[in-house]
């Protein structure tokens, strides 16, 4: 594995950087031990990250975790207090943004309002002193690539949000950057357009093989687009790994709860494992809880099973139809627990039914015990499958 972070934990050995890319013509990127503070706030706390050529890495985390600062330090819009930025083996920490050879797509619409789509795309080439004919040809090619050749003469205010971001992507790629930076480019778009553009960006990045760093707070976006996802908290990368490895083997309770849905069940530390719902299961994460401590045991909805029983210990509270699966909400010791069941099986369950809940997974994560949230009254929720 070539891409490892100093702060990362739990990176699985099967993760393959750049594996999703067709070619690997991009440049390798290294962020080494970066620190950056804004007053008393530490935005980057000894952050290290390596991105392999042609790889798409997503930085995922809540607001204020430092993901955008990391991207801006790489772009040259912020200067790190300490640490190094290395691209293609060359340190560029002190190189101004305009000489870093990086294409960037911003969260807000950033097309130049006074230029039409073609001139926007050609802007970077003009800054590089390319001839007018070359610029026009290259811009036309890039607009063709993002499916907007017929909109070349349109001005930004005449384009939809999705089209503007596609032009911005074409503009960023037209300069054939060594690294492509995406700063939450989909967050201003509506759900349908976001889904389409997400696929288009990934397809284009794969085709061109440009090394890409993508910042987002949307886990679905990160998991569906990236070769690897780095989950950030308080200026550090908690864990970086492939999407499936992150989901299946989260290294900490924070990562487990940030990526996908996670139930908290009351349990007790019992020898090498955790006692939960009548079973003792091995604990996956490192912890310092003494024997007998009450803890929260973290289990995903698909890691739980349901058995209808008239004298069952738990009660079905609600159901949410999700297509082939139904998410059943069950009250377990005063907590609301979500259990994914095949819809055929769940069809027989009605709010108010008694059931037994069991852990079907092999290992669990444990975290500090938190007080249970109030369980709402029983109700059936049927989400529209369309």
């Amino acid at each position, binding site marked *: 594995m070539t891409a490892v972070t100093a702060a990362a934990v739990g990176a699985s050995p099967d993760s393959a950087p750049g594996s999703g890319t067709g070619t690997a013509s991009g440049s390798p990127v290294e962020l080494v031990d970066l620190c950056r503070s804004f007053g008393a706030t530490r935005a980057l706390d000894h952050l290290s990250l390596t991105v392999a050529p042609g790889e798409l890495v997503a930085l995922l985390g809540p607001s204020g975790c430092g993901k955008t600062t990391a991207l801006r330090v790489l772009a040259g819009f912020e200067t790190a207090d300490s640490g190094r930025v290395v691209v293609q083996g060359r340190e560029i920490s002190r190189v101004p943004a305009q000489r870093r050879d990086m294409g960037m797509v911003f969260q807000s619409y950033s097309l130049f309002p*006074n230029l039409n789509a073609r001139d926007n795309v050609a802007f970077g080439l003009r800054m590089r002193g390319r001839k007018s004919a070359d610029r026009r040809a290259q811009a036309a090619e890039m607009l063709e690539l993002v499916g907007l050749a017929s909109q070349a003469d349109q001005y930004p205010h*005449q384009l939809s949000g999705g089209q503007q971001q596609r032009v911005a992507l074409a503009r960023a790629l037209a300069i054939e950057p060594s690294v492509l930076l995406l700063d939450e480019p989909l967050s201003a778009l509506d759900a349908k357009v976001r889904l389409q553009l997400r696929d288009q960006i990934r397809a284009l990045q794969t085709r061109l093989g440009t090394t890409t760093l993508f910042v987002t707070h949307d886990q679905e976006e990160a998991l569906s687009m990236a070769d690897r996802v780095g989950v950030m908290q308080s200026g550090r990368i908690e864990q970086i790994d492939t999407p499936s490895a992150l989901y299946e083997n989260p290294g900490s309770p924070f990562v487990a709860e940030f990526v996908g849905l996670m139930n908290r069940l009351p349990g007790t530390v019992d020898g090498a494992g955790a006692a939960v719902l009548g079973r003792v299961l091995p604990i996956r994460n490192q912890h310092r809880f003494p024997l007998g401590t009450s803890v929260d045991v973290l289990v995903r909805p698909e890691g739980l099973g349901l058995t209808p029983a008239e004298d069952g210990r738990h009660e079905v509270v609600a159901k949410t139809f999700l297509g082939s699966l139904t998410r059943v909400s069950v009250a377990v010791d005063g907590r609301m627990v979500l259990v994914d069941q095949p819809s055929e099986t769940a069809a027989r369950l009605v709010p108010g039914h008694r059931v037994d809940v069991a852990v079907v997974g092999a290992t669990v994560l444990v975290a500090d015990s938190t007080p249970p949230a109030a369980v709402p009254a029983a109700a059936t929720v049927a989400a529209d499958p369309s």
Partner: protein
Amino acid sequence: MAAVASRDLGAPLLEAPAAPSAPGGRRGRTPRVWRFVVLLLAGLYFLVPLYAALRFALKTSQGRTSITAFTSIPHQQGFMPAFTLSLRLALVTTVITLLLMVPTAVYVHLRLPGLRRLFDGITILPIVIPPVVLIVGVLQVAPRRLKGTPYLLALEYAVLAMPFAYRSLDAGLRAIDLKTLFEASRSLGGGWFKTILRVVLPNLRAALLAATVLTVALVLGEYTMANLDQYATVPVWIVSFDQDNSHVSVAVSLLALVVTWVFLLAISSLGWRRSRRAVRAGLA
């Protein structure tokens, strides 16, 4: 009336949903009547004195109607030098003002956004400080070579125009996402100078025109400073000439007003035509 967003020029107009007619059309008519009344009163307030001045200028001292007062203007002693001096001052002041104010306003917005209120306060000072004090201030700092030349007056006018120019530019900069545009340009290889030239200035066109229009109007109409500095600009010449021939003096005042107005219209229509061309190109 079809409801069409003014910016969405590409949308098919025929598909725009028709707004339901307001129940009780009287409600819609009443404000329209008031608008007309207010417009009429404002028009009368401005036009009646102009009409009176025009009538006075078209009368000779013998009471006959004639355009002699207007045709004789270029031949009046001292008029042409005063006129060219005013135009020169307008040009130089505008250049100085824009060269000082554009980079300042851009820098404040980009790098010192926390100081925007302070700058708002500082730039309004020339309005509350008496012109004599401003003149003394400029004299203190002006290069020796400029003293005794009309360009010293241009420096004083630049101070006087600062509140209007800064506010126009400030409003223009607030209307665009300057930080993102700047960063987008830099990520594409644009340095500071190129970014200001190719990205910021074109998107500030309306604000630049407003700043220019206000500065030119101020310079062409300013009397106090020019008189104190003893430069015969058009307003100073009008006042001094008034004592000899009041009909010609009023004719010059009217002509100055018309020339200023035409000049401002020309500047404004320049921007208007360019934006129309841009929209038309977008629709092609």
